[in-house]
């Protein structure tokens, strides 16, 4: 099977398989870890999550999840509220570090390097794994400064012309350049919601990340702005890996190549988007995408 060859290539000492009897025995209060349907592993992944479990204090938010993020793909994470998809997303660039009482177990690797290793510095990590949030959150500064901030703090360039160049390319990539090129000095907070979100995307790509995490990037936007962002995601895929959490199933089916369905902290099913939406194998997945709950 693809899975075994994959794991043989990588240096994972233990196979992430679950002994159902053992996990049942483990706790009575906690229900058994559900086996993932479909193959969560890829041949040439950008990021790998192995046996990832996240706790908020005593409460376990996600349980022993294995999933890969491929290069130049859009991975959509769907599932009902509280299923742990946002939690997992925020583990990928260690944004969960800022949450008091949050504890991450397991291994998350970016290009083979464990990002939870004590020697890893989160600052460059977050430059490599950018993030776009649910609510557009531009800095209360000018449009130019919003985009230029990342390159500035990471010391990409000290040259003004070069910096202006980075800002321009980022805004072009984010599809915002034409709309703002004449008012770069105006505050970023004065833009419309959709423009603000594209500004945030431009800000994230200005530091040339490898992966962009998007946490429901369109939930605060109207349909037209949403369509623009979706178009943008399709274009950005050529350059970046994108992980998107979304509540809108149509959105997942439109923008993603692979879809992962989460349920109460478990990864239930993962597979090519088309297959998940046309032929879900797990009952829970089917119930969710057909709208029976969630």
């Amino acid at each position: 099977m693809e899975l075994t060859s994959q794991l043989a290539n990588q240096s994972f000492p233990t196979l992430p398989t679950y002994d159902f009897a053992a996990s049942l025995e483990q706790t009575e209060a906690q229900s058994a870890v559900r086996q993932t349907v479909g193959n969560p592993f890829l041949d040439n992944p950008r990021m790998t999550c192995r046996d990832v479990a996240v706790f908020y204090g005593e409460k376990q938010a996600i349980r022993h999840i294995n999933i890969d993020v491929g290069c130049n793909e859009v991975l959509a994470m769907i599932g009902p509220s509280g299923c742990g998809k946002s939690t997992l997303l925020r583990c990928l660039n260690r944004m969960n570090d800022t949450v008091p009482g949050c504890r991450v177990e397991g291994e998350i690797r970016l290009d083979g390097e464990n990002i939870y290793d004590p020697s890893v510095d989160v600052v460059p990590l977050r430059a490599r794994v950018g993030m776009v949030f649910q609510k557009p959150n531009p800095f209360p500064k000018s449009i130019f400064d919003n985009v230029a901030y990342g390159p500035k703090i990471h010391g990409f360039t000290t040259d003004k012309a070069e910096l202006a160049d980075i800002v321009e390319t980022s805004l072009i990539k984010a599809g915002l350049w034409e709309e703002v090129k004449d008012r770069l000095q105006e505050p970023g907070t004065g833009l419309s919601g959709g423009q603000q979100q594209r500004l945030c995307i431009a800000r994230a790509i200005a530091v040339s990340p490898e992966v962009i995490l998007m946490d429901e990037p369109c939930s605060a936007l109207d349909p037209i702005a949403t369509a623009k962002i979706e178009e943008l995601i399709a274009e950005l895929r050529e350059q970046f890996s994108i992980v998107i959490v979304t509540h809108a199933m149509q959105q997942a089916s439109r923008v993603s190549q692979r879809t992962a369905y989460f349920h109460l902290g478990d990864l239930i099913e993962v597979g090519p988007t088309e297959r998940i939406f046309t032929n879900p194998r797990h009952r829970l997945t089917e119930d969710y995408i057909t709208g029976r709950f969630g």
Partner: protein
Amino acid sequence: MATENKQTMKPFSVHMNKDLQRRYRAEKRFQRCGIAAIAIALSFLALLFASIIGSGYTAFRQTFIELDVHFSEDLFKDENLAAADYAGLIKQALRTAFPEVKERRALKSLYMLVSPGAAFSLQDMVKEDSRLIGSRQKIWVPANDDVDMLIKGQMKATEAEADRRLKDDQLGWIGQLEKDGKLETRFNTTFFTSGDSREPELAGIWGAVKGSFYSLLITLLLSFPIGVAAAVYLEEFAPKNFWTDIIEVNINNLAAVPSIIFGLLGLAIFINFWGLPRSTPLVGGLVLTLMTLPVIIIAGRASLKSVPPSIREAALGIGASKMQMVTHHVLPLAMPGMLTGAIIGMARALGDTAPLLMIGMVAFIVDIPGGFTDSATALPVQIYLWADSSERAFTEKTSAAIMVLLAFLICMNAAAVIMRKKFETKW
């Protein structure tokens, strides 16, 4: 079906209507209560201002008497100009003005018309220009405070002679001076340029203003940086554990501690233990710093808390370090609130008397302080001292000093508003 529906709907809507009107009435009542509260507060404020200004505005004018002084050379034989008998010059001038007064007791009450400070102003004039010696000059000298009170109408000439401090003969001389145009009221520059004095006509607030200024400078320089640093650390960096909880509770308690306790602490530590000089702006500033710090820390933390978390996430999300997140984004957004808190704390420090009493800034100090370690008093303490003085003329000085203090407070609050507007980030 439809008619049935209507019938059930009707009583409901009637009920609803009644209920609505009741709600509107309640809202109106509430609004009227609010307006009444504001009106009461404003009228108290107006009363306060009216009473202070009413009893204090006269202090800004001062009565002066014109004397024909002859700087006779005989008096300035000594090389040392300060050794000359300037008081004698004044007395001589008064005798020349009223040649008919001969008797010793009458002369004494004649001399009482002029302030003892007049001799000093003559001395200053001679010091400035020694060519005056040998000449005859018409000089305006400050009148004594009793004369001043009479001219300002605060002492009634109609009262029985035994009840007033100016006797009938003195009233006669004053009347004559007035008739000759040798008596007038002028703007009281002394009040704004000199230090404290036992003589009301010579007392001024400049010493207290400078004492307050030096104290507040120390308070600002210490409490703002320390307060902001503490607030930022506690809010942004400190782990949330038992110890930070204890610290937080204690800071909140400190903000509620009566200020005289801080005075006692200052006395025990700064003066008795460290041996810093007493009654100085240095110690006053340190004590006021202790008092202001909790206010600034609490205001600072509140304004840091009000910075939306999305900004922090945005900064961290593109790889800013925690320090960069704080200095580039959080602090600029929290700054207006922090400045407001600092200025409110400083205004409280400016108006606080009790801690300064404990560290000796209540002493009677005539000299204007020239630095942080000179003995000094402060504005509120000066008000306290004058309010305690028996001379009638100090009443108006007290009110005038309160006006000056209020003016400073209004300026500081205006500065707070302006700074908040200036630093406020447009969203």
